[in-house]
């Protein structure tokens, strides 16, 4: 697996929201806000990030609801790899912090 640049907080939380199944915009926003309240994003940021993610092959559109008002997205294989890589990077950063005596308030 080649080393890729770290993901932005918005992209990371969108991938995290999509990892357990496809979702539409508001569902992604709601789950992101629940997982990381500090990285709250609005609809503009959400669709800007999704547009880039689709272009980078991290996510893909799967279709719309019957009334075509909501578009669904799902994570791709490349998206999963990027998410795993980011999680590994975060875990190493956390370990490094712990070794240096810094104890962030997180539970894994």
């Amino acid at each position, binding site marked *: 697996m080649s080393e890729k640049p770290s993901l932005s907080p918005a992209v990371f939380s969108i991938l995290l929201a999509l990892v357990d199944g496809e979702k539409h915009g*508001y569902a992604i926003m709601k789950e992101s806000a629940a997982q990381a309240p500090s990285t709250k994003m609005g609809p*503009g940021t959400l669709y800007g990030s999704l547009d880039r993610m689709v272009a980078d092959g991290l996510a893909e559109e799967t279709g719309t609801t019957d009334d075509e008002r*909501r578009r669904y997205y799902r994570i791709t294989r490349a998206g999963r790899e990027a998410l795993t890589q980011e999680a590994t990077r975060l875990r190493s950063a956390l370990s490094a912090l712990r070794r240096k005596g810094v104890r962030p308030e997180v539970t894994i």
Partner: protein
Amino acid sequence: MNPLLWKLYRGALILLPAAFRQQYADQILQTARDAAMGHPAALLFPFSLFSDLALTACRENARMLGKQISRHPFFYQALCLSIVAFVLAFGGYAVMHLTIRHSANQPQRQMADDAARMYSIADRVTVTGAPRVELSHSLEPFTIAYDENGKVINSDAALNGVVPAPPAGVFAYARQYGSNELTWQPRRDVRLAIVVRHFTGAHYSGFVLVGRSLATAEQGEMIARWAALLGWIAIVVLLTLSASFFSWMEGRQRTA
């Protein structure tokens, strides 16, 4: 959220780049409506919605610009260089304009100093007959002396047979500061570079006005202005041709 704010939000979506708007405007609106249902009483919700839209507009427009630049790099380089050339050409023109206008006050300064000294020590002024300089077409420097009330004491110039007087403010300024240098337009088509000195003597006190037509200086300015403009246009044409050539070369290399 207030229906008016919804209308405003929908209208503000125009700030997004057209391609992005076309693809996501409906989704953004739907997601914002869904989010509003989830925060019915949140006062800050409209604020967060609008600030998110403003940030997205900046981000997406910058991204779109970046894409366009990467698609046509030579044309953007040419555009940047044209702007630099514009600043240089017209900056150069502005410097030249100031230099020409400043030098148009010579030799009036020296003549005004001499005349003011002469009038301040004079016992009597002899009027030197008919004015020799006709201001409507002569390029010669001229001198007019006025008393403290602005009445002509002596003059070697006239405009269609009448010695003109500048506005009272010109004398007031010269009285307060000792001197005044300005462009005077006694008639629509007559522009003069004048130097006014205040003098005080035992018998006379008042003002000496020494001037000269700005026609020569304005000709020089016009040449400088056209040189700057034509020089800039030539640079823009050259840059556009080079950009087209390099784009064509790049396209050929890509297809090869």
